[in-house]
C-alpha cells in the first residue's frame, strides 16, 4: 500500500477523535499519507484494495451532505463496504442512546465508525466504550478534525508550507468545530492563528489554545497569508449574538474591496456551504485567490488517509 514519505513513523491510533490528541508528527503523517492517496483519484479505475473486506459505518446523528459523501466515497475508493445511518427515522427517534445504537450496529461486524454528532465529545465517549475504530466527522462545537486536515493539506499544497504562515479564521468561532480543529492543527505545525469576529462569537477564553483574538477584519487583512471564512449560521442571529446579517456582512464580510488590501497571493478558504454575499461575495469565492473547491477535492484524499490509518491502528 501507499509508501509513506515519513517511513520511520509508525501510526498506532485506532481512533481519530480530534487534533487536540495528535502530535505534529502524527498530523504530518496523515497529510503525507493523503498525498499518496491523492493520485488514486486521477486513475481511470479509482479504487485501491486497502480496506477490502472491512466495513465502515457512517453514523450521521446530525445532518451533513458533503462530509458524508466525502467519507462515503473515500471508503469506497478503499474498497470498504459502507453502511449509512442517519438519525432521521431511526431508533434514535425512539429514544435509543448513542452508545446503544453504536453497540447494536457494531454487533453486525463493523470495523470503523465515522461519527457526526451534535453533542461535543460524543466520539470520545464512544471511543472509550467501543473496541472498533471511531473517526470524528464533527462533534457539536468541539472538533472537526478531517475538515481541518483538509484545510491544512490545501494550504500546504498552495503555499508550500505551514510553519511561519499567519492564518485568519473569521466568523462564529464560539460555535465552530472547524475553527477549533484548525487552530489546534495549525498551531501544532507552527503557523500563527488570529480569530476574527464580534465578541459574542469570539470568546477571549480561546486564546489559551494559542491564537490571537481580533474584532476587526480590516486590521488583519494586510498581515495574513490565509483567510478562512466560516459559515454564519442564521440561528445565531435570532439568538441575539449579532444584530443583523446585513451588519455582519458589512463588518466581517470578505469582498473585492477588502481583497485588494490583502497580500497578493492571500488564500481564501471556506468550509462550505457558502452563504454567497454574506461571508464572502461571489467574485471572491470564485476568484483566483479562492481554493474552496480544491478543499473539497483534497477532503477525499485526507479522509482516505484517515480511514486507512485508523484501520492499521491498535490503541
Amino acid at each position: 500500500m501507499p509508501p509513506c514519505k515519513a517511513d520511520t513513523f509508525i501510526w498506532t491510533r485506532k481512533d481519530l477523535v480530534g487534533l487536540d490528541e495528535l502530535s505534529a508528527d502524527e498530523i504530518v503523517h496523515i497529510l503525507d499519507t493523503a498525498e499518496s492517496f491523492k493520485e488514486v483519484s486521477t486513475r481511470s479505475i479509482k479504487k485501491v484494495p486497502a480496506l477490502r473486506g472491512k466495513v465502515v459505518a457512517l453514523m450521521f446523528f446530525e445532518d451533513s451532505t458533503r462530509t458524508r459523501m466525502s467519507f462515503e466515497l473515500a471508503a469506497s475508493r478503499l474498497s470498504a463496504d459502507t453502511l449509512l445511518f442517519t438519525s432521521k427515522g431511526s431508533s434514535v427517534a425512539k429514544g435509543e442512546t448513542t452508545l446503544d445504537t453504536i453497540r447494536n450496529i457494531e454487533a453486525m461486524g463493523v470495523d470503523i465508525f465515522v461519527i457526526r454528532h451534535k453533542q461535543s465529545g460524543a466520539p470520545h465517549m464512544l471511543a472509550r466504550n467501543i473496541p472498533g475504530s471511531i473517526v470524528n466527522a464533527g462533534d457539536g462545537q468541539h472538533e472537526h478534525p478531517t475538515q481541518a486536515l483538509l484545510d491544512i493539506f490545501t494550504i500546504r499544497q498552495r503555499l508550500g508550507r505551514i510553519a511561519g504562515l499567519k492564518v485568519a479564521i473569521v466568523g462564529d468561532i464560539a460555535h465552530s468545530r472547524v475553527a477549533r480543529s484548525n487552530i489546534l492543527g495549525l498551531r501544532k505545525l507552527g503557523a500563527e492563528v488570529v480569530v476574527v469576529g464580534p465578541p459574542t462569537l469570539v470568546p477571549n477564553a480561546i486564546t489559551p489554545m494559542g491564537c490571537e483574538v481580533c474584532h476587526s477584519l480590516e486590521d488583519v487583512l494586510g498581515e495574513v497569508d490565509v483567510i478562512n471564512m466560516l459559515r454564519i449560521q442564521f440561528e445565531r442571529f435570532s439568538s441575539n449574538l449579532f444584530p443583523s446579517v446585513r451588519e455582519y456582512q458589512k463588518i466581517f464580510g470578505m469582498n473585492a474591496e477588502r481583497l485588494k488590501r490583502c497580500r497578493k497571493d492571500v488564500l481564501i478558504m471556506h468550509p462550505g456551504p457558502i452563504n454567497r454575499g454574506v461571508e464572502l461575495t461571489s467574485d471572491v469565492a470564485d476568484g483566483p485567490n479562492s481554493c474552496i473547491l480544491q478543499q473539497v477535492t483534497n477532503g477525499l484524499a485526507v479522509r482516505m488517509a484517515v480511514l486507512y490509518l485508523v484501520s492499521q491502528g491498535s490503541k
Partner: protein
Amino acid sequence: MNDILIVNGRVIDPACGRDEVADVAIAKGRVAKVGKVRAKAKRTIDAAGRIVCPGLIDLHTHCREPGHEEEETIASAAATAVAGGFATICAMPNTHPPMDDETAVNYVHQRAAEADLARVLPVGCITKGREGKELAEMGLMLEAGAVAFTDDGDGIASALIMQRALQYARMLNVPLLQHCQDPELMGGVMNSGAVAVRLGLGGIAAAGEQIMLRRDLELVERTGARYHVMHVSSAGSVKLIRQAKAAGLNVTAEATPHHLLLTDAACMSFDPNYKVNPPLRSADDVEALRAGVADGTIDCLATDHAPHSKEEKELEFGLAPFGIVSLDCALGLYAKALIAPGLMDWPALLAKLTANPAALIDRLDALGTLAAGSEADVTVIDPKARWTVNVNKSPSRSRNCPYDGWKLKGRAVTTIVGGKIKYEHQTARRGT
C-alpha cells in the same frame, strides 16, 4: 449501667469547646457523660488514637425518593451516610413529586424510621412544585418537622417571590437555602472559561451565581431573614459572603468536597462524572473556597450527594445529568482538601460538620453536640487510616463518583445514632 462506653479517644466537641482525651458514656439513647468514666457498659469501644465527635451532619443530600428509587432511596442514602460517619442527613426536596407539603415531609420521616440508620431530616420546597411561582406551605411543613426550605436544583428566579419567601421565613424563623444561579445565564453544562471553549461545551459563568447572590443579599438586608448559600463555587461568591457577614447580615454558606478539590480541567476527558451544578471551576476558585472555609466565611461542609444512574451518566457530556456522589467518602475528601494542606485542624473542620450545621437547622439542643443529655449520635474517626475509594463497595445505589480509586487519609470507623451502633468499619472492632 451504660449501653456504650467509648474510652480513651480524643473527644472533639466544637459545640462545647472540648478537645481532650476522654471517655464518652451513652445510656438510653443519650449522651450520659463525657470525661473519666469508671462505670461499666454493655459495650466498650477502645478509641485510643481516634477522634470521638458528635455524629456528623450533612446539610445537603439528594435521596431521590420518591421518584427515582433506582438511583437512591432514603434507606440507601441513610446506609451510605452512616458508612461515611454521618448520623444525620438533610433530604433535598427536588424529588418527584417535589417535597412541597406536610404529607411529603411525613413520608420522609416514615421511610427514615423504617430504614432506622441515619436521621433523615426533610428540607421542604420554598415554592409549590419547585416552580418558583407560589409559596409552598412552609409553616405546615415546619410543624411536620421540616428543618429548612429550598428549591435546590434551581434558584428562585423572581426577586418578588424571593422577597416574599424571605419575609415569610423571617416570621417562621427558618433558614432559606438558595441555589444561586441566574436561570438566563444557565446556558451551559460546565464552567465557562478556556476549558469549555476548547471542548466546545456551553459555559456557566460564575457571574450567574454571583448575580443572584447579590440580589438576595439586598433582600436579606431588607427582610432580616436567615439565608444560606448552598454549594458556593466561585471566588467572587466567597468575597460577597465575607462582605455580607462583615456587614452583619444573617448569612451562612456551605462548600462541597468537589468544589474544594476539583477544577474544570477534569472535564477535558468528557467524563460526565465531572458534570455537576454549580460546575467545577478554576484553581483560583478552589483556593478562594478553601480560604473561605478556613477563615469562617463558609460555615458548613455539605456533600450535595447527587446520585444518578449509570445509564444516564453514560450519555454524552451535554446530555448527562448534573451530580456527584460522595456521602461515604466525604470525610476523607474534606481532610484532603483542608487538613492535609495545613489550612485547618480537626476541631475546626469538625465544627463545620457538627455544631455549625446543627445550629443552622435549629437542632443544636439535641444534635451536633456531645453535651450531656443530647442525642447519642457519635462518630469515631480514625484520622490516620489510609484507604482507597472503591465505588463498587458503596452502599449508594449510584456510582457517579469521580473519586473512585483515590487514596484518602482519615475515615469514620464507627457511627452511632441515638445510642445504637449503625455502622462499624472492619478495622473498628477493638475493645469489648
